[in-house]
């Protein structure tokens, strides 16, 4: 395919402080990422930025030539969270990534990106949501390459596909805060303890396998999703946007590797290998291959 996919930077899933976020997005402004997702999708209590602060950051990034999108909470429970969602949707400047159906209901037909938690598993769901204003969709994390490509091929003409290719995998969301639970604190007296864990809390099995990561009310994989080796196949399908998770400062190095493969300046296997050294996580690509998500094949296993 002649058109090269654009790269997007997913929202920061962890509770980083204001300065860490500013530094991170300073790097983002000067990176090869064209689309940048901002905002909080895990816990509404995290407020490194006020609503106004996010808006200002968005404007700064937009003036640096980036397309800015606001990500919304994946799990809405409290009335205050819905209130914040309404405010976010009505921001008047930036599109939203809907991570819950309530956000779609509230956008009232305005264009939106549909996050992986919307569970778009089949063409008919994609069609229905396209009619509601969906302009780009992120597949469910567990969807294998076969059904994903089949869905991409029959997508409505107004809809693009955005595929996560690097980052820890979001696996579950709960009312319970696992970080607070680990520290024997009640959720409403959490003391913002997740800010002490900028890379989440690693849970090992009792035989020392790095297994899961606790991030407040979210659980992610301990392995890092790495589809770099599969980029030539992905590029051939014409998928329009590739997303890298904003969960690690090394994402900018990962973005360079992905860009180099897409631009045919680096071979995919070499880049995949190099990507495995960017963080201390083990990498995996099982879901892409229709296997358990924790599994690694090809170059990642060697």
């Amino acid at each position, binding site marked *: 395919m002649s058109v090269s996919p654009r790269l997007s930077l997913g929202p920061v899933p962890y509770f980083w402080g204001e300065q860490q976020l500013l530094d991170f997005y300073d790097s983002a402004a000067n990176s090869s990422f064209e689309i940048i997702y901002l905002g909080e999708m895990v816990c509404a209590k995290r407020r490194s930025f006020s609503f106004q602060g996010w808006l200002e950051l968005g404007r700064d990034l937009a003036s640096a030539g980036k397309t800015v999108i606001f990500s919304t909470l994946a*799990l*809405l*429970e*409290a*009335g205050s969270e*819905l209130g914040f969602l309404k405010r976010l949707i009505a921001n008047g400047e930036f599109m939203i990534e809907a991570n*819950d*159906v*309530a956000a*779609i*209901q*509230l956008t009232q037909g305005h264009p939106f990106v549909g996050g992986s*938690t919307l*569970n*778009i*598993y*089949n*063409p*008919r*769901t*994609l*069609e*229905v*949501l396209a009619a509601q204003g969906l302009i780009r969709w992120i597949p*469910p*994390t*567990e*969807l294998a390459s*076969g*059904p994903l490509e*089949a869905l991409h091929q029959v997508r409505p003409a107004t809809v693009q596909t955005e595929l996560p290719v690097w980052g820890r*995998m979001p*696996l*579950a*969301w*709960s*009312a*319970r805060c*696992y970080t607070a*639970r*680990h520290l024997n604190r*009640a959720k*409403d007296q959490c003391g913002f303890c997740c800010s002490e864990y900028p890379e989440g*809390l*690693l*849970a*090992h*099995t*009792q035989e*020392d*396998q790095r297994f*899961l990561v606790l991030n407040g009310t979210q*659980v992610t*994989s301990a392995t890092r999703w790495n589809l770099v080796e599969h980029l030539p196949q992905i590029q051939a399908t014409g998928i329009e946007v590739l997303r890298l998770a904003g969960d690690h400062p090394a994402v900018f190095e990962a973005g360079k590797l992905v860009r180099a493969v897409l631009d045919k300046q680096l071979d995919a296997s070499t880049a995949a290998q190099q990507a495995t050294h960017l963080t201390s996580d083990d990498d995996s690509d*099982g879901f892409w291959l*229709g*296997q*358990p*998500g*924790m599994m690694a094949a090809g170059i990642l296993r060697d």
Partner: protein
Amino acid sequence: MELVCPAGNLQGLKIAIENGADSVYLGFRDPTNARHFSGLNFSVESARNAVDFAHSHSKKVFVALNTFPQAHNWGTWRDAVDRAGELQIDALIVADTGIMDYACERWPELRLHLSVQASATSAEAIRFYHERFDIQRAVLPRVLSLTQVRRVCVDSPVDTEVFGFGSLCVMAEGRCLLSSYVTGKSPNNFGACSPGEFVRWAETGRGLESRLNGVLVDCYGAGECSGYPTVCKGRYRVEGVTDYTMEKPVSLNSLPILPSLLQAGVSAIKVEGRQRSPAYVRRVTRVLRAAIDSCTRDPENFVPAPDGMAELAALSEGSQTTLGAFSRYWQ
């Protein structure tokens, strides 16, 4: 308040109805429902018998069709909708947006209930499905506190149903990929969490080990109660502390807050457990029937009967019960 009970087979359905269920829910023998276990569920023939039996007792039958089809297997789900439509059931419990769209178009008279698998935690989310597909009831995810349930009930355009008793998902249903991460199969894509084919038990020097596709989920010492190795109920090591990181093996029991649920305007109480034995269904249905009747008669003075609570505790995972997310403390 309606009592909705599970049926894994025809015998279970009859027992649920004979012991006080107002409605019974069931699934077909395929991955279209979230209890796709071998030896469980209904053929067309047995489902027809189930509907006849229930209707002759003036009770209702719901069919759970609450998993997510993909491009290559869409036909299996579509056929299941058609089968349900032809059976004259009382409601179809659905989670997938595409399936709702199909059911609404092909079977406009068929009543739709929004499955817990659709993860609708707010009135806005419920309204989305109600306005587009005319869903008539929403089953609320087990992540809401009692206060949040009240708010949804006030704002929701349709009836609500909540879980009253049974195994507890601690994650938002329909969005949990923990089973898939370990086995490749999840409630969403296969209709089962932690399928039995991946479970291994082994007595070792360390104790009784439970594994899911090779991953050590827990290891039990002498005298410890063992639980089925679902990922969320395992013991892991975090910062040197080995404990139930997400939740211990425990069942949800909402009987202590039954008057509050009634007052909140909840229309139906659901019992989890289509995979459970008819004997289990009999015992749970009797306890819940008596509790709902007593609570409806005199909500202000309702206290769960101690023998009923003891009976439920005995039937629970790890012999322990919790109010789950209903209680603020749990969160």
